[in-house]
């Protein structure tokens, strides 16, 4: 982290916080928390039909939680004065993320071990490890995971192309701004539009321009989505098309941050262009490259929109990503429980592999002898 002690803003104020003020603060926090608990209890009773009240939904609980959050914020200032005002900077986002991530994740763990079909009338029923057994025997899920490995490996090629383009853009060329804007544009397009523009129309077998080109080049009946390998490659290409600009921009920023004189010194010392690149530019670019690749991996793991819209996982699951598989699992069978378990297993796998990746990178970048 770049924040060092010297960067921080130090303010010393003497806050005069008497016992009365302290009492008000505690009252605010615990009073509103009590209210939240009470609303929650009443709602639970009402939903299970123990008392005669009728609420359409759980919104009162949401409002109570919101109220508690506001009271917590006010209480910070009442209780801790100046330090409380500082806490106010990060409190809203923290509460927001906890409410939107941590709470649903805990909730998801509960759903994952149950049989819950949203379209059937009977509600949720706990079924222990049945979902795990089902997952273990589900060849399509393992297939989707295997596809994700392929999709992730494609990043290496994307990186090489992005680095090449960034090197060219950083060198002395005319009309650099035009090329930069043109290269950036694919990133702005929505994957859904891309899947129509490229996947459904340009790659269409009869009239699409790319199919025409393929015919002209001698491929008799071009079909891009019937062979598993070709279909997967096409998905990779479409995804790469939208995301290469992203890596390119990050790498370009990294290149421009390298001081000119380092490269000039290398040239004076007799390093040719190629050696200068491998021994000076590339090592200096490594940290940026790793950041770019890491972020790209994170985005790649979310890959779904193009697959859902172009192939829906076909042919025979050859293009399925985990996300698109779970999406269809829900769409076709509306089984929330099983889908959630698959998603959680996916999350665990991601966290493990990213941690390993980062450890390896760390070991490689800072070797300990």
């Amino acid at each position, binding site marked *: 982290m770049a924040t060092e002690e010297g960067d921080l803003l130090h303010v010393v104020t003497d806050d005069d916080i008497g016992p009365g003020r302290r009492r008000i603060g505690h009252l605010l926090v615990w009073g509103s928390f009590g209210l939240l608990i009470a609303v929650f209890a009443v709602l639970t009773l009402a939903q299970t039909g123990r008392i005669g009240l009728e609420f359409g939904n759980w919104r009162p609980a949401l409002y109570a939680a919101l109220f508690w959050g506001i009271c917590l914020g006010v209480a910070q200032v009442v209780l801790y004065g100046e330090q409380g005002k500082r806490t106010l900077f990060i409190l809203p986002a923290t509460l927001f993320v906890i409410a939107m991530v941590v709470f649903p994740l805990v909730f998801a763990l509960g*759903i994952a071990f149950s049989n819950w079909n949203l379209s059937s009338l009977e509600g949720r029923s706990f079924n222990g490890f049945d979902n795990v057994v089902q997952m273990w025997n589900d060849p399509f899920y393992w297939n989707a995971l295997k596809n994700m490995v392929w999709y992730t490996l494609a990043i290496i090629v994307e990186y090489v192309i992005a680095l090449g383009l960034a090197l060219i853009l950083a060198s002395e060329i005319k009309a650099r701004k035009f090329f930069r804007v*043109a290269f950036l544009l694919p990133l*702005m397009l929505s994957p*859904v539009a891309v899947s*129509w523009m490229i996947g459904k129309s340009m790659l269409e077998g009869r009239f699409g321009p790319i199919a025409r080109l393929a015919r002209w080049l001698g491929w008799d009946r071009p079909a891009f989505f019937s062979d598993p390998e070709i279909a997967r490659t096409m998905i990779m290409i479409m995804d790469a098309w939208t995301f290469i600009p992203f890596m390119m921009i*990050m790498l370009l920023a990294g290149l421009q941050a390298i001081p000119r004189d380092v490269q000039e010194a290398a040239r004076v010392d007799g390093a040719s262009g190629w050696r200068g690149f491998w021994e000076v530019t590339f090592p200096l670019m490594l940290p940026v490259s790793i950041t770019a690749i890491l972020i790209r991996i994170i985005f790649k793991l979310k890959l779904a929109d193009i697959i859902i819209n172009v192939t829906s996982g076909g042919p025979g699951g050859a293009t399925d990503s985990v996300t698109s598989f779970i999406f269809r699992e*829900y769409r076709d069978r509306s089984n929330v429980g099983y889908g959630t378990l698959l998603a*959680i297993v996916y999350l665990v796998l991601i966290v493990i592999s990213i941690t390993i990746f980062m450890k390896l990178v760390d070991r490689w970048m800072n070797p300990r002898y």
Partner: protein
Amino acid sequence: MTDATQTSAQIFHDSEHDTGGRVKWFAGRVAIYGILIIWTIVCLFPIYWTLTTSFKLAPNVMQGHMIPWVDYQPSWKGFESIGMSPRLLGQESTVREEFLKRFTNSVITAGSASLLAVILGSMTAYGLSRFRYRFGFMRNPDISFFFLSQLILPPVVLALPFLVLYKELDFLDTRIGLILLYTLTVLPIVIWIMRDQFQSIPVELEEAALVDGLSIWGAFLTIVLPIALPGMVAAFILSLVLTWNEYFFAALLTSTDAKTLPVMVASQTGSQGINWWAMAALSSAAIIPLIIIGVLLERYIIKGMAAGAVK
């Protein structure tokens, strides 16, 4: 002369003053501009294809016409299917209403989610770059990591729990439900960009403001925010791009009222068969706002993406 050729053999198309090999230098230039032009075509041709196809008729599509006015006569047929052609603009049109509804949904959800994320994210980033916090075992680096680690979370993990939660809260198919989720997805990126921004602003500015009698919030709002405005614009635009294009959550959580433009585009792809001009018009309408933003505000987008890259 032999000396010159020897150096030119070693030097890989470098700047001209190093070598007498004009031919080699020239070849290098040609190669570089060749790559640039090929990649420009790769980037721009799909966009060109979509825009021109939206003005085509069935025979133009089947005969593979490419250039308007030269090999085919543009027609407004595609845009008529979403009610946006000049002939239909004056009249009532249900398809246009449908399209405009989706369009406004997209504008409102993407705009408010980005705004909310920039507000929450700037506050958090400022706090983390200026003050020292301690909540239990969590210190500043831990808190930063807590926020940034949200990036790893794939949307599919949250999707199904949210489906159930939103059903209970009656948030399904509402804009507010989408806005909250979108804010969550872009918040880590905003925090990342803004933290970088605030770290580049010297602390002395705020110290001076505090000496002059402003409170920390006063200094933040009146001194720091105006300086950090370009960064905020960058974060906002990057969030806007991501949320405008979002499909996964929108497809799961909306059905009629709050459906956004990408969902509308996706729902038409299957049903229309060879009705390409209508699809092309709809796709163009979905991508044109962002293309305009991309061309006009390219500077900010690059700034935003570069923020995290260089340390």
